[in-house]
């Protein structure tokens, strides 16, 4: 009997389903347009406006659909709930802002980065919606392949190539382990769907329990690599330093947000948290990355490497909170979003500093070389950078504090006081390296070295635009998010 091409029972698109998928459709269109633009060797400005408009459009659509649409299922490969929409919207927002100041390499018209950026965003938006491991794997690859390529944007400079080579090799190596993990799941439960696996997990007994634990450990360690938790964070510092600034900032913020939320969704969907040893494993990684990440960050002399290790510390904070099921999701998303925006500001101001000091575009600045900045940069940027760093450190009047407070309250609610102590020690050490990087800018006397006229002053303008918008968003988002939290909490109830 002939099988009609679309078996309506599984893959049925209702009349108003296009509203749910509209942001994805917009992304698809964006990718197409940008590939065409790439082939026509469009200049940076055109690429920037195009990618910014598509990405911000997608973000608006995601947030709009958050209020109007309910849950949308597409077989087991996509489930679009309110939380996934917020995550996707956030990712598009971050991508849009970081695409504003991407600069193609100076020698050749590299205009492909637009398409790659959009494909990477697509991957990130899809990841939390996956409800079976095959889809999860594919979205993960859709996310990481363009990431490897984007970090090789300045392909004539050794640093950028080395960073992307490292990221690629490590990424491929780790995805093999990820595959082994999901095939173990498949071996135990006979299917990749999360529900089937959760049934199998509860039924597992004795030695099979250990097998499930190894499967979960393999899967989680490969995802921990993506999010740069402690033992698997070695690549982070090199890629942050090597990759071009906007790409590094986008990757730092967006990957953490998307991967962490998909871990929370997938692991609680599969019921993996109640396998003995898993929550201990995750918490152990969290503690290690908070403490050792902070210690590493204290010794860094370069701003971008310090931001990499602060990324490890913040990932550690989230890992401490992870194994408490689905209720943890809103605070995790809030925390990571504010973290991403702050990192974005840091990289943006770093880029402006590069321009003003007349350094080559992929150079990364020593923290104490910021001293000469005082004479060349208007204090507005220094205040911005101070704002971002102190918000990362979690000093109260700044939004970073509120989200960290909500995160820590989850720990307090589950009376995990040891973890709370570790988190507080982490914040204290965090104070160390955030303030230490503020010190040369603010406290040392200004050295008025010669003023260099930076030829790409125009891009400076866009940088300022970014910083300003991010700054306002940050404050706005920091506060309103918390009010919005309640309404989304109801939405969460299935």
């Amino acid at each position, binding site marked *: 009997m002939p099988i009609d091409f679309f078996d309506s029972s599984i893959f049925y698109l209702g009349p108003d389903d296009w509203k749910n998928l509209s942001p994805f459709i917009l992304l698809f269109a964006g990718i197409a347009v940008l590939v065409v633009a790439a082939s026509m060797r469009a200049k940076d400005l055109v690429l920037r406006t195009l990618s910014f408009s598509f990405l911000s459009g997608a973000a608006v659509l995601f947030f709009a659909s958050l209020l109007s649409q309910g849950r949308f299922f597409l077989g087991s490969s996509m489930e679009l709930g309110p939380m996934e929409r917020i995550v996707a919207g956030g990712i598009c927002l971050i991508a849009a802002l970081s695409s504003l100041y991407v600069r193609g390499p100076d020698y050749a018209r590299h205009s492909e980065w637009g398409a790659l950026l959009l494909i990477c965003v697509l991957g990130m938006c899809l990841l939390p919606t996956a409800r079976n491991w095959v889809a999860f794997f594919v979205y993960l690859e859709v996310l990481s392949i363009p990431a490897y390529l984007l970090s090789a944007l300045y392909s004539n400079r050794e640093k950028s190539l080395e960073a992307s*080579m*490292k990221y690629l*090799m*490590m990424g491929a*190596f*780790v995805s093999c*382990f990820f595959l082994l993990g999901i095939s173990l799941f498949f071996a135990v439960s006979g299917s990749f769907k999360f529900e089937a696996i959760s049934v199998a997990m509860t039924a597992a007994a004795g030695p099979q329990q*250990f097998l499930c*634990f*190894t499967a979960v*450990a*393999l899967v989680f*360690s490969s995802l921990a*690599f993506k999010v740069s938790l402690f*033992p*698997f964070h*070695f*690549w982070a*510092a*090199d890629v942050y330093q090597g990759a071009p600034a906007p790409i590094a900032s986008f990757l730092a913020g967006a990957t953490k947000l998307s991967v962490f939320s998909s871990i929370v969704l997938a692991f609680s969907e599969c019921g993996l948290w109640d396998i*003995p*040893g898993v929550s*201990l*494993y995750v918490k*152990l*990684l969290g503690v290690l990355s908070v403490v*050792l990440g*902070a*210690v*590493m*960050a*204290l*010794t860094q002399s370069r701003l971008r490497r310090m931001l990499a290790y602060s990324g490890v510390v913040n990932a550690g904070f989230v890992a401490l909170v992870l194994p408490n099921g689905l209720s943890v999701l809103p605070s995790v998303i809030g925390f990571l979003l504010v973290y991403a925006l702050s990192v974005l500001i840091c990289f943006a101001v770093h880029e402006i500093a590069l321009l003003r000091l007349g350094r080559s575009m992929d150079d990364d600045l020593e923290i104490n070389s910021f001293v000469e900045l005082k004479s060349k940069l208007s204090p507005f940027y220094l205040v911005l950078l101070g704002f971002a760093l102190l918000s990362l450190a979690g000093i109260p009047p700044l939004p970073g504090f509120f989200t960290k407070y909500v995160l820590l309250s989850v720990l307090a609610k589950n009376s995990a006081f040891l973890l709370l102590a570790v988190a507080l020690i982490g914040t204290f*050490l965090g104070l*160390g390296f955030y303030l230490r990087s503020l010190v040369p800018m603010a406290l040392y006397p200004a050295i008025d070295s010669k003023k260099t006229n930076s030829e790409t002053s125009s891009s400076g303008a866009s940088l300022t635009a970014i910083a300003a918008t991010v700054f306002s968003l940050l404050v706005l988002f920091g506060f309103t998010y918390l009010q919005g939290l309640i309404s989304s909490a109801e939405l969460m109830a299935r």
Partner: protein
Amino acid sequence: MIFEGLRWILLAPLLGAVLNGVILQNKSAKISGLVATLASLVAFGFSVVACSQLSGLNSAPEQNFLIDPLFTWMSSGHVYVPFNLELTSITSVMLLVITGIGSLIHIYSISYLSEEESPWRFFSYLNLFLAAMLVLVLASNLAVVFLGWEGVGLCSYLLIGYWYKKPENTAAGMKAFITNRVGDIGFLIALFVAFSFFQTGDISRLAERVNDYAFLSSGVPTWAWYTFAGSLLWAATAKSAQIPLYIWLPDAMAGPTPVSALIHAATMVTSGIFLICRVWPLFAMSPVIVDAAFWIGMSTAWLAALIAVSQTDVKKVLAYSTVSQLGFMFVALGAGSPAAAFFHVITHACFKALLFLAAGSVIHGMHHKQEMSLMGGLKDKMKITHVCFLIGTLAIIGFPLTAGFFSKDMILAKVFAAQGVFGYILLLGAALLTAAYMFRAYTLCFWGGARSEYAQKAHESDPLMYMPLVVLAFLSLFIGWLELPEVFGHFTKITDWVHSSWYGVGVGEQAHLSHLAEWLLMLITSVLSLTVAYYSFKIYQRNPEFKILPEPLHKWSTNKFYVDEAFELLLIKPSMKAGRFINRISDETTFNGLANGSFRFTRLSGRLLALFHTGSVQTYAWHFVFWSSLIVGAIFLWTL
């Protein structure tokens, strides 16, 4: 009975001080001196009016005092301190002494400081001192007495350090202030006991506490009485320069002589004894402390006398004689008769002030040279100062019918009645020593040939200086008549005043001596002291370097029995060193070290960790496999 005038006694010197110190600040001694003297005279006038007001009032003993309530200084919980001024019989006498002698000294110092470059500072401090002393005397609440007590300490610090260019003056000032502060701790403890156990700071109510039976049986712990009396005694020893804490008085001579006369002879040093006389009923409740006072007084009298004998500086001799006379007053208190002590306070104030001012005019004449070895033969160059100095010396050794005779004789009588013959003989020995060193000083200064060109050129000071001398000489001759022993008829003004000031709380005086015993005592003391005086007069005329004490004792006494060095060695140096050591240990090494150490430790471990980041992809991959399998293995074993 409410009398508004009391506040003006206090405000006059205060205004003087502010006028001189802040507003005028002019350079000439005449004008600032005049302002200051005027202020103290106004105070004297008001106090005379107040005293007449008080004597006119002869109501029942509990009511015969004047009150002038000003404002509540502080009141919180069990501590209620109203800032009221009060005039009782005992305070009225003290008031007259302070303002009287104060004004005389003001007049004296106008000329004494004629060639100073900032006399306004001196006069404003002197007026401030008067104000503080008046607060001490007039206060009705012990806490306000403490205000005066510390204020007086501050002014003595400022005045001793008046010539602040020379570092040893300021060192002497600091020493005085700090030793007084040691005493103030005792006063504070007494205050705390008063407020927490006796529920009041008011002197009159405190005295009533002694005989209201309800309070006594309400179970105040005995240690409260002892701490109260003990700490008061401790405070008095510091302020009135007794054995352990007298070291600041001889150094205080670094200040100008009028200061030494007013503060370190007449008023401040006696405030300790005055305070104990005012709260005597409470003090007498603990006989152990009274005996302690007796022996402290006795040992101070002897020690100071022994040192005074070998001193070469005239002001030092007078300083040690003050310490020894204060010892006498403590002995009187110890013998259980505050009246005798108070009488000696008044007489001593007069003749000691006289002696100091006379010495001052001698020093003034000798162009600020104080060494007796440079003096000699001044009797014909400074006639009036010589006569006054002679009267003062006679008064202090107790020449019959002079002020000293009556008060010293009364103390000796009381001691004989209370402690028996042994106490009497000891005190008599001290009195004889006093006679010895006083006449030594007298003869060295005024008799024999002039031993230096200063002595040749010495000239009599101007009338402004010797007029107060004459007044004081007159006083020290006739003030004694206020209190006659039974033998000479029943004229006991001082005892009535002292007893009546305890708001009717009578404390029985010791048994009375028979007339025969009194005659005998008077005879022995005056004969012996006169013979000693004559002998020392004769010896020192011929041989100025004669040593009264045998050799080992003489060397010790010239070095003031090394008490200062002992204090320095045993108390001040070790505590300072220990303090510095503790602070270095607790602050620098442990806590600072901890703070910096932890920072360096994290920095170091960070650098150690950085070694892991070799940069090659394969080490990163190696780490990935190694760590994941390590943790998985560990957790597997853990969950087994």
